[in-house]
């Protein structure tokens, strides 16, 4: 059989070199993001576009009932700095998703005993390191500026005597309260990171010592993580995103946000592999593996659409005002501020990947995959934008330097952290028991 090998596993060890040049570029991007953000903040503080905002705000006030209970519905409390915090939250949640899906992907591969992916598992395995950045950011933002993001944190909203008293929100205070929320958040991040670092340790140990003990341990860790993720993915969706529109609820929401995270993570994995290949690394990852990644992106884009559409259809069909408000706000609320993003959301995340990735050839062609990854990444950023901004900012939302600066900062930080994590282990898990299968993968 050895004759069929493209190379013998003995010399597959390959290390990613995070060059000074590469570091410099990422740091430049980071600095550019910071500059854009600062200019954006300056412009915001000067009230750039103030008239438009004012008009929209007045318009919104007329149709005050066209809101699903987001923080912004608290009239008079809006401050221009809210937009900065909303962006921190948006990017924090989005990149947390990409990072944690890295672990999810690896876990699924172990649990399902998938062979083909063993050749590229080091890439998703590096992602969860970024949770060490987004975790503290989200936790601190919640502690310091939670009332900007969450309507239910407004002062006096659950006090019967207060003028801000809101009966519906008060009814949820058993779940939505500072301590419990913070506790859940910390527990999720700690569990994710602990399981990941445990898995990572075993994975690197396997490189050094071989054998199959580590493999079976990793299957167990993966199983544990899947159980944790099964619960935490839904709860984090309710907490971090659904509770922004505090009055509104949907049983689908947990799986909806998870499906958005999932396909974003898959696109990030694919794009990272392709970029590493462009740099001359991972030549043993061939078009068969890319084809499989492409199939995943295709399938889970459809899955996202399925979940998005079912949620929409059932709410639309039953036509309960307290539920339809969510879509009305995004479709025609705030002077149709969010209508364009709502349309782009479906175009980027469904029509584009569905039509482009339909054929076998497209999934085996690097440039098609790359374009599709970019569309999915942008599309799901917009998806999270749609989930978060209307509730937090309402008529004050928009796309400006603050948005572009913030996402550049987060993205460059993600690339930096993941790149340095990639240097810490060989790019191929050379003692993975399924490596030989993956190297001969041919579909």
């Amino acid at each position, binding site marked *: 059989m050895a004759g069929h090998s493209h190379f013998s596993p003995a010399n597959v060890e390959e290390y990613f070199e995070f060059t000074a040049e590469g570091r410099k570029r990422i740091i430049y991007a980071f600095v550019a993001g910071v500059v854009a953000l600062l200019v954006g903040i300056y412009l915001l503080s000067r009230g750039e576009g103030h008239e438009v905002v004012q008009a929209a705000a007045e318009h919104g006030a007329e149709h005050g009932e066209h809101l699903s209970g987001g923080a912004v519905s608290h009239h008079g409390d809006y401050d221009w700095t809210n937009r900065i915090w909303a962006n921190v939250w948006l990017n924090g949640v989005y990149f947390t998703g990409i990072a944690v899906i890295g672990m999810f992907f690896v876990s699924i591969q172990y649990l399902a005993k998938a062979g083909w992916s063993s050749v590229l598992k080091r890439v998703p395995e590096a992602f969860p390191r970024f949770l060490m950045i987004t975790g503290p950011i989200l936790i601190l933002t919640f502690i310091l500026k939670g009332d900007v993001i969450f309507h239910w944190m407004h002062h006096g909203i659950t006090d019967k005597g207060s003028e801000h008293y809101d009966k519906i929100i008060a009814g949820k205070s058993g779940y939505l309260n500072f301590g419990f929320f913070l506790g859940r958040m910390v527990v999720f991040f700690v569990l994710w990171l602990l399981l990941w670092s445990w898995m990572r340790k075993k994975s690197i140990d396997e490189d050094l010592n071989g054998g199959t003990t580590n493999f079976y341990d990793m299957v167990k860790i993966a199983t544990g993580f899947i159980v944790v993720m*099964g619960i935490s993915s*839904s709860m984090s969706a309710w907490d971090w995103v659904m509770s922004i529109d505090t009055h509104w609820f949907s049983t689908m929401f947990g*799986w909806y946000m998870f499906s958005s995270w999932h396909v974003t993570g898959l696109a990030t994995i694919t794009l990272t592999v392709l970029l590493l290949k462009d740099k001359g690394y991972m030549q043993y990852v061939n078009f068969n593996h890319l084809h499989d990644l492409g199939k995943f992106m295709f399938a889970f884009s459809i899955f996202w659409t*399925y979940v998005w559409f079912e949620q929409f259809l059932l709410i639309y069909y*039953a036509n309960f005002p307290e539920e339809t408000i969510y879509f009305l706000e995004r479709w025609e609320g705030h002077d149709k501020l969010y209508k364009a993003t709502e349309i782009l959301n479906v175009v980027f995340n469904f029509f584009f990947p569905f039509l482009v990735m339909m054929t076998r050839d497209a999934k085996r062609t690097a440039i098609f995959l790359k374009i599709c990854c970019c569309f999915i990444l942008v599309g799901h950023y917009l998806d999270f934008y749609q989930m978060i901004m209307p509730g937090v900012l309402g008529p004050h939302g928009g796309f400006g330097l603050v948005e572009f600066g913030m996402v550049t900062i987060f993205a460059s930080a993600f690339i930096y952290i993941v790149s340095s994590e990639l240097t810490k282990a060989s790019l191929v898990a050379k003692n993975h028991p399924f490596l*030989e*299968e993956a190297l*001969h*993968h041919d579909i």
Partner: protein
Amino acid sequence: MSHVVSPIRETLVSGGKSYHDVTNDICKQVEGAPTKEWKIAFGVSLVVFAYGAYCLFWTWWQGIGVWGLNKTVGWAWDITNFVWWVGIGHAGTLISAVLLLFRQKWRTSINRAAEAMTIFAVLCAASFILAHMGRPWLFHWALPLPNTFGSLWVNFNSPLVWDVFAISTYLSVSLVFWYLGLVPDLATIRDRAQTKASKFWYGLFSLGWNGSAKTWARYEYVSLILAGISTPLVLSVHTIVSMDFATSVIPGWHTTIFPPYFVAGAIFSGFAMVQSLLLITRVVFKLEDYITIEHIEMMNIIITVTGSIVGIAYLTEFFIAWYSGVEYESYCFVNRATGPYWWAYWMMMSCNVISPQLFWFKKLRTSILVSFILSVIVNIGMWFERFVIIVSSLHRDYIPSSWAMFSPTMYDIGDYIFSFGLFFTLFFLFAKFLPVINMFEVKSVMKGVSTNYPFKKKQGGEKSKENVH
């Protein structure tokens, strides 16, 4: 597909079988005279079928007034049974299509029986649609056919009409997929046939299969395309079934998680039914070398995963019912768990969510007896799930003066028994006259997974086996 197989993979065909052994072992049932066990089992099914057919006849003769429905609970066993059977009908196509796309080799020993079971289960489900139509001879009115009654069309806004489309499409595609998969095996039987009659019949249905490379190439292409078509179909069917409920404004029914949660539940019950049937088949037909402990364990793992997904959905619904602050919704769920139908609710919870967790223990999920008992329990639980959703949501509606309970009559029960008779009669006919295991697919994966190919077991193979346990 590559034939490099990691030494730590479990073998899927044991007993050192050669290709010829596979043909012999599986054709044996088809070619030999019916065994005594088969005759008894088939006879019992026929008796059950006959009794059920009488009940169904009486339902049609008298009208559905013979059921226990009342003005509050207008839907009960009929729709429960329908959803239950449709759910069971998910596993076959899932195994053959989705697992084919995922290149799961272990599917090859079980897909044939699972697909057959799917088709029979969908037929059973369809029988409840016909049963509760009242005038089944007008069933074609459910289709949007041009007619002479003016512009009289079906209500395209109704999920019940979507159901008609979804299920009839699903049945057709599953049937084609199953039949196509049978063709090469039918040709094998034709080529071995001793009697004129079997040569004729198997020859007729094998469509002149000649086994040339070109035929095989076309065949592979078609199966992949059909798998691609079936995958969205299998997901769409229970999605649309769930919409029969979720598009309404009944508390406990209108909830957005229904579509994926119903699909997960359907896969759950479908796998459990496949497990029950295969555990019997493997013993009766002595197929232990093809349906190994590894297969059983894999199915148990899927049962646990889907059962847990269903569990998360139950808890999500319960939580959101409270979180929403909607009084009706909260009441509905509290009533399910503590009201007069509490026993049905806890039956569902313990069978569907708690019992599959036993499979976390390797010892239990590799035990044949435990697997069998649990697979039956799961399907009992899934029946109660539908009963809980349907009856407990309806029986206490918006007007307390209309609150009522449902009690089944012998015709509710008899029509349900009919579906069992139908199902098992068809299944036993299938098991006798068609190969229950897909011979050519098993052969196609044997190189990697049979004990007959010891060169696959490199050094370390034994060592790794120890680690498994």
